[in-house]
């Protein structure tokens, strides 16, 4: 297998000694089938052990290795050398404070996931412990897409609204709330309404769709947010007229 020399331009930042982020160049002999993550691993193991970045699974499922590659948010294990020019710029995800080099601070989005109340909420008792809820394939299909989120946070990095103000609860948390709202086993939609429909929730989204474009798992948060706007309006009217806020 042939190798190709890639000029990697990597953003560095060490808060203990750097006043501002800066770029470091590495020349990396890349195998044809490598992803950008493999090039970073090469740097770490062979050229500069002080470079810090997050990674684990190298199979697009753990969500650790999101970075900005040539200006766009990507999972670096899923961004292949074969699709890139000879010069590649790697920066941390945008819209987050930089913790160190390519590592960003995720506190804010971790709290937002929690705000979505991403768990089954019941008013009725669940079935006995040896009995499942029945759920048709059609009912599963309704929310399945929104279960695919790996929390890589590329959508927050792409979101212009979150870039303006991190008061906005944001795409992944909204999709997650929507996922549980749509689950036939859940009865907690009303409880998620207040958090999601107020001024920091769905109404802040300007529907640019950048989140869905950035999503490496085709979750389509933009669609979730649009559906929630409709749901939110319906709930508001239902509650105003004293109707139940839950699905049958």
């Amino acid at each position: 297998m042939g190798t190709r020399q890639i000029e990697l331009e990597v953003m560095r930042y060490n808060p203990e000694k750097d006043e501002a982020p800066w770029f470091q160049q590495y020349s990396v002999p890349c195998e044809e089938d490598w992803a950008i993550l493999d090039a970073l691993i090469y740097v770490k193991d062979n050229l500069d052990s002080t470079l810090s970045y997050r990674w684990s699974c190298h199979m697009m499922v753990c969500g650790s290795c999101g970075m900005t590659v040539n200006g766009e948010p990507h999972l670096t294990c899923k961004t292949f050398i074969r699709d890139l020019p000879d010069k590649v710029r790697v920066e941390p995800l945008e819209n987050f404070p930089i913790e160190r080099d390519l590592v960003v601070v995720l506190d804010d989005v971790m709290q937002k996931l929690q705000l979505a109340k991403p768990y089954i909420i019941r008013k009725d008792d669940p079935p006995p412990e040896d009995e499942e809820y029945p759920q048709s394939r059609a009912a599963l299909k309704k929310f399945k897409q929104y279960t695919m989120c790996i929390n890589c946070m590329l959508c927050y990095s792409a979101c212009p609204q979150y870039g303006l103000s991190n008061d906005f609860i944001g795409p992944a948390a909204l999709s997650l709330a929507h996922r549980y709202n749509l689950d036939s086993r859940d009865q907690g939609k009303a409880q998620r309404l207040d958090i999601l429909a107020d001024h920091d929730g769905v109404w802040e989204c300007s529907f640019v769709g950048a989140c869905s474009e950035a999503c490496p798992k085709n979750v389509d948060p933009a669609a979730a947010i649009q559906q929630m706007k409709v749901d939110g309006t319906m709930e508001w009217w239902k509650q105003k007229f004293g109707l139940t806020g839950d699905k049958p």
Partner: protein
Amino acid sequence: MKHIQADIVIVGAGGAGLRAAIAIAEIDPEIEIALISKVYPMRSHTCAAEGGAAGVKLSDDSLEMHFNDTVSGGDWLCDQDVVEYFVEQAPRELVQLEHWGCPWSREDDGSVAVRPFGGMKKKRTWFAADKSGFHILHTLFQTSLQFPSIKRYDEFFALDLLHEDGRARGVVAMEMRSGCFFHFSAASVIMATGGAGKIFPFTTNGAIKTGDGMAMAYRAGVPMKDMEFVQYHPTGLPGTGILLTEGCRGEGGVLVNKDGYRYLQDYDMGPETPLGEPVFKSMELGPRDRLSQAFWHEQKKGNTVPTAWGDCVLMDMRHLGAQRILERLPMVHELAVSYVGVDMITDPVPVRPVVHYMMGGIASNIEGETPMPGLFAIGETACGSLNGANRLGSNSLTELLVFGKRAAAGAAAFAAENDYPREAPALLAQAEAIVARVRGLLQKSEGNESVAGIRGEMMNSLEEGAGIYRDEEGTEIACKKIAELQARSAAIKVNDKSNVFNTDLQGLLELQNMLDAAECVAEASNARKESRGAHQRMDYVERDDENYLKHSMAYRQPGERPRIDWLDVTITRSQPGVRDYSGDKK
């Protein structure tokens, strides 16, 4: 050093750690839980499990059959009381996940679907397409968010166990963001840090699987059990080692050599089954150890296919058709396209065996208890002897749940019964010593060895000496090599002197942990002079129940080779017999 007081410390927030945390929170919301993880919980390697979780579900199946499959799959090295408890609790735990919102795949009637898996006599593997581990992990993580008593310490790297008078008392951990050290004290500690696949060069395991919990326990004097049993998964993608789930074969995929011949029939797993109609416990649905060993022989015979990434066999799934592949196996379809450029709908995929799972680990029992009072171990880091000499695919995800819950109950009871003084000067001194050790590594300014260099030599030495087939000479060389690398690792200099997210320092600490795990693997492989399950010795080709129907127990002896003891296997009702993978055709 900052001090955190909790009732129970859990190290590791993957499937096992999260299940335990939820169970404790449900037992008593007053119990303070510190859940420490070196990564955010959703990054834990449980997310990479694909195929599913085993539990009896259909009316033609029985607990007895699940028991028998597990015990014979484990080549009779399983503790049978553990297996009995496991098969009984498994369905309940899988339903519990369903109640928590796990998006299990469904049958037409709305019930949860099950698929066939290797070594299983019936369909009993619950699955969520081919991302079962991912969905289990996220369901558990999201469910855990509703319990205020679970206090998370994400991206805290645990360094070592604290113990006093032979009893576990907490851990010291480093906060990655600040480099600050934290002294966690607790009445009981649960280790749930996962496996150590990264000690081998070619593995399905993520970068984080460095055997941290095993090494922490080992250094504290707790024995490692059955470490010679390392599972090779027969179908990894060449190059990256990415897993192509056993579900591929469960759905009907077949393995062929360079001549298009289904070679498994030559290795006691025949007769050949009709294409697209897999037969339980035969051919491609044989157990993982046998399939990986068959590859080794095909390679020796020159029957493998040379590729840019080395020798492979081919997994042919074309007969399944696009619809079934995309519905049941969408992720592996994408992975094969992305990483080896093969579309399994139109072409066979090159695959080869790849290190996947450690059957061995921290010695633990049916309660998740280790020999050290107050220390519990669950999941892949533990060896509770459910899996014996060879784990059956889809038993380990269920194991996380069943024993995560059980150990939680034990840890909570232990914490309730064993209060201790909150001020403990001896522990503080121990904690200071741990911190001094790590600070010493960071400050060292001289040294001509590197983390990547020693790590590479360790991996190659294990692959050569303790791979799919082993012998006296090879394991002896590996043991000496690992000891040499341990000595040489003292000359590693950490170039990064920063306190903030220092992955250079973390890499060295992980390497030290891996070397401890590697030592146990090499030494136990050397000590077990028989062939059983995943441990195959060319110089002792038969199973030897007279001498080795026993668990190996490796005890650390600083500066010397570990001491290997032997512990009897618990047999309740199944005497060692012949492992039959002919699909009842013989």
